[in-house]
């Protein structure tokens, strides 16, 4: 039953392109120590603000030049992928788990559980998510775990809202009623009948959320409210490079391109999955972001 769906997915160019780009970023993050020419925090003040190697004055030891402290831009952007990818994967999975569990409970049970979950979503939606994550980081303090936690606490609603609507429609279908008549327990119905039916939507949402998580982490680290100062992250690189952007634009452009690549990969993958798994979802999904 899964093979045709997989086949359709792999024939969608957006899935292939987005998936390949995301896989490449994951591999870069995984093998950062082997790929980076320098340790990410190694300073070489004598070689500060070097242009990329192909420009006059460039040094082949620093392929993408150096920042104002003489740190290798290429090495930092490679190590920055570790923070970005960990946040992307873990925050997206965490938010998916929390959001869709609540959506399944709310959509399947109805009644007061549904009321509570829906009101919670309403409250969350009445506040700009970026501001909420910043406030959470002030309370939690710096650290990768806290960033992931903050994103989960803020973004579970993105899953819950859309998934609940989907669960409500699926739960009314005849085969669910049939399962109930056949004596399935509630847990069996939710896990064996509802969950597979909403899985394509969930998969698409997870992939889009990976991009959102990368952006949120970049915003947090740009403000200085993300990982510890010694950990290289793309947002930190952008904040560091901003005062010297007129002399050395590469230090700024490289992390911007990295964030763009990660979000583009997530969006292409999400869009492709949506198209190949369920064309009818187009409208509801595009409202998600």
């Amino acid at each position: 039953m899964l093979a045709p769906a997989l086949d359709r997915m792999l024939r969608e160019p957006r899935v292939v392109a987005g998936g390949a780009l995301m896989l490449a970023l994951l591999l870069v993050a995984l093998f950062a120590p082997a790929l980076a020419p320098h340790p990410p925090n190694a300073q070489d003040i004598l070689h500060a603000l070097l242009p990329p190697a192909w420009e006059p004055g460039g040094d082949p030891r620093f392929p993408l030049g150096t920042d104002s402290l003489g740190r290798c831009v290429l090495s930092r952007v490679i190590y920055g992928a570790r923070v970005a990818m960990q946040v992307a994967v873990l925050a997206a999975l965490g938010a998916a788990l929390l959001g869709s569990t609540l959506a399944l409970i709310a959509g399947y049970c109805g009644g007061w559980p549904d009321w509570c979950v829906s009101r919670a979503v309403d409250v969350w939606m009445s506040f700009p998510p970026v501001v909420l994550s910043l406030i959470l980081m002030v309370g939690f303090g710096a650290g990768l775990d806290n960033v992931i936690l903050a994103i989960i606490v803020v973004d579970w609603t993105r899953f819950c809202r859309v998934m609940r609507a989907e669960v409500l429609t699926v739960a009314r279908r005849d085969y669910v009623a049939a399962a109930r008549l056949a004596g399935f327990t509630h847990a069996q119905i939710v896990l064996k009948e509802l969950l597979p039916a909403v899985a394509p939507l969930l998969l698409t949402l997870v992939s889009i959320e990976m991009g959102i998580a990368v952006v949120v982490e970049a915003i947090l680290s740009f403000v200085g409210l993300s990982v510890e100062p010694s950990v290289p992250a793309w947002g930190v690189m952008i904040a560091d490079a901003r005062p010297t952007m007129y002399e050395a634009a590469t230090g700024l452009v490289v992390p911007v391109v990295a964030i763009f690549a990660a979000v583009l990969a997530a969006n292409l993958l999400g869009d492709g999955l949506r198209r190949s798994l369920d064309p009818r979802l187009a409208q509801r999904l595009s409202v998600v972001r």
Partner: protein
Amino acid sequence: MDSGFAILARRLILAVPTFIVVSLLVFVVLRLLPADPVAMSLPPNATRAELAAARHDMGLDRPIPVQYAIWLGQVARGDLGTSIQSRRKVADLIVEALPTTLELVASGLALGIALGVGFGLAMFAWRGTAAEHAADLASIAVMSLPEFLWAILLILGLGVGLGWLPFIGRIDPQMRVAPVTGLLLVDTLVAGKVAAFLSALAHLTLPALSLALALAPLIMRVLRASLYDTYAEDYITLARLRGLGERRILLRHALKNAALPTVSLIGVQAGFMFGGTLLVEVIYTLPGLGNLMVQALRSHDLPLIQGIALVYCVLVLAINTTVDIAYLGLNPRLRRA
């Protein structure tokens, strides 16, 4: 189906618990703070007794529920407290910063809606061609850059690279305008200063465009999707049979019916746009609410953070209510009951 008034009334009644839950959440989270904001605000040679006295003055030595009750009581009387960092009234700081942000969000929204609806219609008119495919991929690419990266790239490209537009502050620092509303585009016109108006407009262009570029692709994609749905309806076929031109069918018949999902999207996104203003204001050194909030967050200025959070809540509520009203105007089915 609910009547229009019922929807608005429900929205307003729901606003009270929403506000209480959000403020409670913000309040409790900020009390988890590992750092001591009071210690940060005192000179480094302050004694323990001075620190304790300062904490006592601000009521920070009391239990959290008591602190929250006191704060809520003060807010109800219109008192948002005093900033720990600047020792100024939080309400004054907010009132000074608010017009900058409102002007930015309003122009970002207007620009984003114009670009989004324009390209959405164009994309639909190109349906089935290579141009639609290209526009579709381009919209995904544009969507993949958040506001603050657009802000930086626009500065690099149009501000520094080409030198077309200014990117620091709200207006040429040599120009002085008497504040009336705080909205520079309005104040300069009230004062009759055309040069100052143009300067303010030029300074607003890049930050507004940064916000607009994050919004436009979403509008574009949703509008196109709902136009596809609308064109499946019989009355479009009927209009064609009556011999109406394609342009007339699209603009006069389909657009109004296809607009509803776009309007609700704009409602949600307009609320989110206040989140986008934080870094855009920092990057363009605009003295708005977002910039104030980032400073407050960095210095752990609790009363200021709470006050601004409250204002964001009210602003999002105001936008949602406005969108509800627009929705009623567009959807007669909701008005009848």
